[in-house]
């Protein structure tokens, strides 16, 4: 039997009518090169399972009906054991599970060996968002990839264990603090797909969701160029908001007045704040600039001096955009 | 209750649900061995943590071990072996109904146990004084430490070539360039420069010796209980099961120490 007919047969068994995207009753759309082999094995195991499940239930129900207790009738005698029979039903599952193991292992090898010419994207996970860092240094909170080109993710975590999971690609890999973990895929269909955090990581674990945008041939490079120039193409306020989100500021600073590790930035501009050293000041551009580049210089009273410096990590235009954004947070709503 | 009492007229040392003294003894003994098995796996977890950390960071152990006083460690080993001997002899005394000897032997074992804890206290105290504590409380300064370990700099065993081979594990620098720590460099300077995370050695040291110390204390408790049983006359009829059980436990405490001494104190 050729593997294609087998695949079709299994698809039918799995209740899936191949409707183009490879999704079925059981599985989401297939959008990566490995998804097909994963789904093939899934459906194979499903077929084996359905067979044995039906066998067990049918035999069980048949016995219950056929040998249901009747008044004054005792169980018929039959042997208490039968070595040949028992060895047979140990042997058949053994052969099947060996097959499943081999298929699973082969698929796993493909999934863990990225092609040499892969496009590399760095992934930074932290509670509770993802940062995707492209080769030109641009950082985005969603994963954009070209279609039909292998992409390799090199991932690190800043705090606890996270796990990058893209159901449509059948890809999942834990992101462990202190080490690089790797994953790769080659998307086959342009579109937008979900990316989840699959390893429990605390309060907003279930909101640690990003999108994977698969760009059609030729469009990825254009997107990247445009996105990287967001300081020029976007209004400063919007650019500032974007930076605020993707550069990790929002981990410690809220914009709605609630207190996190650092003070909230709601209505911060023009306010007077007291500092730990006893001085006080009305917040202006210069102070914001100082507290980004030298955060320890003047710490707002009641907070720990824990903010890292962004010296060398944010450019002047970026700081200006952030300042514009903070100015817009005057409590009048967006 | 029916007319089927078994307690009356029976050996008071035989519990009602056993048929014979032998069944009772063998049950207790099997139970004890199974318990010792759980003890091995309990300590075993720490040995796994130890091994994994040592294999990954051998320099931390080479460095840290200099701060342990191997003279005191050896003394404690001798003390525990002696106590193992006295408690083994105590079992013999109990079997032969030598009650007075038994009392002395239990006391001798306890004396050893206290001596062990005393030496341990001296050691812990000196670690405390120098800030050589577990990672969260570690506050050691290398400058002061030099007085603590006169042997370190001159120890012939610390040769740059021999060190990487010692643990039969390639130094951590064998990963891709730029990814792994340059452990090779620390080998040359092990006696002078504190390697990164040296404090974890002391975490492991305190965990392992601490858990062992708790077992020693439990052993002392068990021996006090034996003395109480002895005073009550439990052993007069040659019922040595309790002594045997405590002895088995005590030997395991000794066994664990034999390995702890080797693995913590004698690293080069």
């Amino acid at each position, binding site marked *: 039997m050729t593997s294609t007919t087998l695949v079709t047969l299994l698809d039918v068994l799995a209740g899936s009518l191949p409707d183009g995207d490879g999704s079925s009753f059981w599985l989401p759309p297939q959008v990566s090169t490995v998804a097909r082999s994963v789904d093939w094995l899934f459906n194979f195991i499903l077929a084996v399972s359905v067979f044995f499940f039906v066998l067990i239930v049918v035999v069980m129900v048949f016995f219950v009906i056929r040998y249901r207790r009747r008044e004054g009738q005792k169980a018929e005698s039959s042997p208490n054991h039968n070595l040949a029979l028992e060895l047979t039903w140990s042997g058949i599952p053994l052969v099947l599970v060996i097959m499943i193991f081999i298929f699973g292992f082969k698929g796993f090898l493909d999934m863990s060996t990225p092609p040499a010419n892969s496009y590399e994207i760095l992934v930074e996970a932290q509670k509770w968002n993802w940062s995707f860092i492209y080769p030109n240094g641009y950082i985005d909170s969603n994963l954009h990839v070209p279609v039909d080109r292998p992409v390799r993710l090199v991932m690190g975590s800043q705090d606890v264990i996270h796990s990058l999971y893209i159901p449509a690609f059948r890809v999942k890999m834990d992101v462990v603090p*202190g*080490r690089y973990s790797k994953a790769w895929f080659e998307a086959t269909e342009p579109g937008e797909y979900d990316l989840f955090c699959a390893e429990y990581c605390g309060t907003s674990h279930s909101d640690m969701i990003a999108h994977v945008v698969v760009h059609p041939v030729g469009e990825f490079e254009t997107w990247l160029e445009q996105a990287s120039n967001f300081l020029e193409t976007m209004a400063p306020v919007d650019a500032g908001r974007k930076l605020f989100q993707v550069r990790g500021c929002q981990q410690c600073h809220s914009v709605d007045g609630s207190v996190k590790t650092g003070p909230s930035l709601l209505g911060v501009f023009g306010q007077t704040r007291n500092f730990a050293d006893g001085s006080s000041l009305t917040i202006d551009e210069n102070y914001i600039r100082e507290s980004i580049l030298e955060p320890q210089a003047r710490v707002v009273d009641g907070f720990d001096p824990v903010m890292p410096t962004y010296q060398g990590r944010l450019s002047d235009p970026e700081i200006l955009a952030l300042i514009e954004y903070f100015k817009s947070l005057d409590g009048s709503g967006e | 209750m029916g007319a089927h009492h078994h307690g009356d007229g029976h050996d008071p040392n035989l519990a009602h649900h056993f048929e014979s003294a032998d069944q009772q003894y063998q049950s207790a003994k*099997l139970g004890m061995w199974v318990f010792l*098995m759980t003890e091995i796996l309990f300590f075993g977890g720490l040995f796994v943590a130890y091994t994994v950390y040592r294999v990954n960071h051998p320099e931390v152990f080479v460095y840290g071990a200099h701060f342990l006083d191997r003279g005191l460690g050896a003394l404690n080993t001798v003390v525990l072996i002696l106590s193992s001997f006295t408690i*083994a002899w105590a079992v013999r005394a109990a079997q032969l109904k030598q009650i007075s000897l038994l009392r002395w032997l239990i006391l001798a074992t306890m004396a050893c146990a206290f001596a062990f804890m005393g030496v341990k206290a001296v050691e812990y105290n000196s670690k405390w004084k120098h800030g050589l504590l577990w990672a969260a409380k570690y506050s050691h300064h290398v400058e002061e430490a030099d007085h603590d370990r006169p042997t370190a700099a001159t120890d012939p065993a610390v040769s740059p070539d021999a060190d990487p081979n010692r643990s039969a594990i390639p130094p951590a620098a064998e990963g891709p360039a730029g990814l*792994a720590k340059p452990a090779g460099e620390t080998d040359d300077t092990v006696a002078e420069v504190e390697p990164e995370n040296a404090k974890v050695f002391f975490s492991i040291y305190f965990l392992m010796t601490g858990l062992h110390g708790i077992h020693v204390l439990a052993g002392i408790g068990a021996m006090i209980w034996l003395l109480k049983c002895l005073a009550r006359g439990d052993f007069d009829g040659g019922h040595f099961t309790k002594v045997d059980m405590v002895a088995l436990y005590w030997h395991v405490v000794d066994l664990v120490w*034999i*390995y702890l001494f*080797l693995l913590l104190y*004698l690293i080069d």
Partner: protein
Amino acid sequence: MSQHTSNGVHVASLRLLVTVMVALMIGTWLTVSVTHYDFGFLNIWIGLAIATTKAVLVGLYFMHLRWDKPFNAFVFLSAFLFLFLFIGIALMDTAHYQEVLIPGWPLE
């Protein structure tokens, strides 16, 4: 010349116990003194071999395994079997991580 209790349990002779103790003391002296010589990677294995010999002596004679039901020895030894399994796999796996560690983490 071996003695037994009324329910047939072997009584270790005092001479044997003393001999074992002396052997253990010698073993301890040996463990310490071999550290003055450098056998390269063998150091740890020599140490472990001596320690294990001592442990076997304690087990066989002080703990009476030599005269005990073999099943008790089996119980005790199987604990070590499972421990080695645990150590072995943990080591095999952690060795693999070494090359993907991020130097100097956390970075800030």
